[in-house]
């Protein structure tokens, strides 16, 4: 037994058979909160990441509708809890009791795709690598592992290869998952993987399975997903900033809803509110969206982004120009296509980028 354990610990690959997936992850869930993609409802098309529960339906054959963003950036996150209590030393006074809520419990997200993890690499720049470190984000981020699929399920909204990533991009992942006939091969990519494998209670793959996985990976590596060109957008957004005709052309049909930002793995904007309930309450960080009017509403009454045109300009500009200008060229879009698929009016960010480029290059020529 001990010897077997030891042998497992040293292995860098395991094989999970199709019928063994739930059990394997249930084993893991004794030590970690395991998030997996599953259907949102009984008959729904949409998928979302949720914590594993016994007998749940894990779906690894297409991209989730909602990204795993909320694992690290919950839609509503309590930062501080507070309570007013009668002061023990002076009964005529109240004491304010504060409790900071930092969650450091270990998490595995199983079944992410390269675009999902890329989303966190973008958010990391903001929350971990600037002048200020976000302790709430850091606590969750450092305690989360990603097991990522070599992705073979690109559709006509995907364009990860156009924005510096790709369907075989394992940057930021701890384990690579390769789907093969009859199951999945899991391969350790960071030191943290072997700990997981030792808890999985799975066999090592045989020669043939390793060869199958190699072939799948090769195929995925050779895929180029998307053909968006991004040269010139960086300067283009700046140059076309005042060209409201252009932005009208791009975003006239926008509803100014929050779908695109809430399904986006790289949209990290939040708001902070105090939510009291009697003598106690919490300071809450919740998702916000630059597509909302209130997002830029100033106390004076002035709103620098009064219409959806300025707001859409910000969404596109932030991802393809302001962010890369600030963070050494990294485009703040992972090309997952979620905003395109879920937009109620089918606004296509690729088309927006294309229009900006055209307008920009047009300007240069004339």
């Amino acid at each position, binding site marked *: 037994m001990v010897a077997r354990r030891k042998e497992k610990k040293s292995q860098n690959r395991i094989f999970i058979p199709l019928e063994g997936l739930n059990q394997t992850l249930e084993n893991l869930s004794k030590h970690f909160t395991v998030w997996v993609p599953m259907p949102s409802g009984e008959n729904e098309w949409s998928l979302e990441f949720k914590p594993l529960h016994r007998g749940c339906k894990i779906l690894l054959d297409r991209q989730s509708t909602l990204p795993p963003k909320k694992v690290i950036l919950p839609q509503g996150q309590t930062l501080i809890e507070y309570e007013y209590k009668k002061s023990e030393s002076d009964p005529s006074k109240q004491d304010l009791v504060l409790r900071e809520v930092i969650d450091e419990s270990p998490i595995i997200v199983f079944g992410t795709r390269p675009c999902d993890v890329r989303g966190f690499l973008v958010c990391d720049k903001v929350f971990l690598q600037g002048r200020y470190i976000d302790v709430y984000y850091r606590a969750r981020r450092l305690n989360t592992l990603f097991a990522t699929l070599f992705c073979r399920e690109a559709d006509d909204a995907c364009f990860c290869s156009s924005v510096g990533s790709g369907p075989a991009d394992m940057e930021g992942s701890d384990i690579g998952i390769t789907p093969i006939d009859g199951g999945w091969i899991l391969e350790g990519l960071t030191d943290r993987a072997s700990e997981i494998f030792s808890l999985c209670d799975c066999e090592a793959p045989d020669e043939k399975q390793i060869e199958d996985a190699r072939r799948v990976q090769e195929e995925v590596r050779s895929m180029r997903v998307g053909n968006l060109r991004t040269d010139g957008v960086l300067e283009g957004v700046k140059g076309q900033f005042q060209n409201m005709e252009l932005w009208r052309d791009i975003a006239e049909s926008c509803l100014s809803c929050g779908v695109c930002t809430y399904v986006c793995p790289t949209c990290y904007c939040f708001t902070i509110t105090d*939510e009291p309930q009697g003598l106690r309450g919490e300071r809450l960080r919740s998702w916000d969206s630059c597509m*909302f*009017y*209130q997002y830029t509403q100033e106390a004076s009454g002035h709103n620098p982004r009064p219409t959806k045109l300025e707001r859409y300009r910000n969404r596109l500009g932030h991802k393809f120009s302001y962010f890369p200008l600030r963070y050494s060229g990294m485009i703040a879009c992972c090309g997952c296509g979620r905003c395109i698929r879920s937009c109620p009016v089918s606004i296509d960010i690729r088309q927006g980028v294309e229009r900006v480029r055209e307008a920009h290059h047009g300007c240069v020529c004339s």
Partner: protein
Amino acid sequence: MWSEITKKLQETVQNIMPQVEAVIGWERGFNEIRIKPVVIKKEGDISKLVWNPFCVQNLSGYLVKSPAVIPREGRRVAICVKGCDSRSVTALIQEGFLKRDQIFIIGIPCSGTVDWRKVMKRLERSSVIHRAEIKDGRLMVEHAEGVEEIPLREILLRRCLRCVYPNPTVSDVVIGETVSPHIEKEDLYKDVEAFERKSLDERRKFWAETLSRCIRCYACRNACPLCICQDWCIAERRDPKWVTQKPTLKDILLFHGIHALHLAGRCTECGECERVCPMEIPVMFIKEKLNETTLRLFSYEAGIDSNLVPPLLTFNPHETGI
């Protein structure tokens, strides 16, 4: 068939173009089953316009929500409407947001529009869609991994399966043949009635499960042509504060309750709120209950007669029945 109607539509637009400021219609989106709204301002763009059962969006909100296309003096804005959309236009006129003589209504009888998610569910995978064609009541989809044929009825939006006004109720020109509704008028609220026969626990469980999926993206609110507060919605207001920003069922329920009540007797059942929801929550169902009540109490249907005042926008001390 669709290409013929599209051709007629383009010809019609060609003819009226000199008199209108712009034409709001639909064009192809990122694939053939995803159509998007388009505002045509110059003749050269008319060829973009299409009509087919993928033209899901109700465009009437664009007439009123900022930055709307405002016609210059003496000109009009043309808009393409399906049966359900035409009721939204009437409702906007009823409530004083629009003037009838500022718009030119291109009505298109509609035999139902397609729910793309239902198509995907039939394909059982995400796949690149190469071609989609609807013929003789069937959809044929050619995608990266094969061809699928699906009876149209199985992939229509829920709103379309219960639509009783498929022909525009108001228009300046009609394109295409009159169609017959999918259901009889007396069956309009049979889903509501069936639901009400369930036990309180079952009903509570249903809403708890479906609404807990809500991500509070407010697409349902913003897509509704009659949700006119939009940027000043109680859902986001801090002062006075009605709803917290927590994504908990309690707050979600409160938002949807308020949303629905603000539409009581105004909602035309265009189904946009439900169609746009990324989490597939049947939010129109809540409004259907309110409309059933409005019909029963006031014999009133929103967006049918532009001369009527919606019952909750007026006060009659002699009101009977309530």
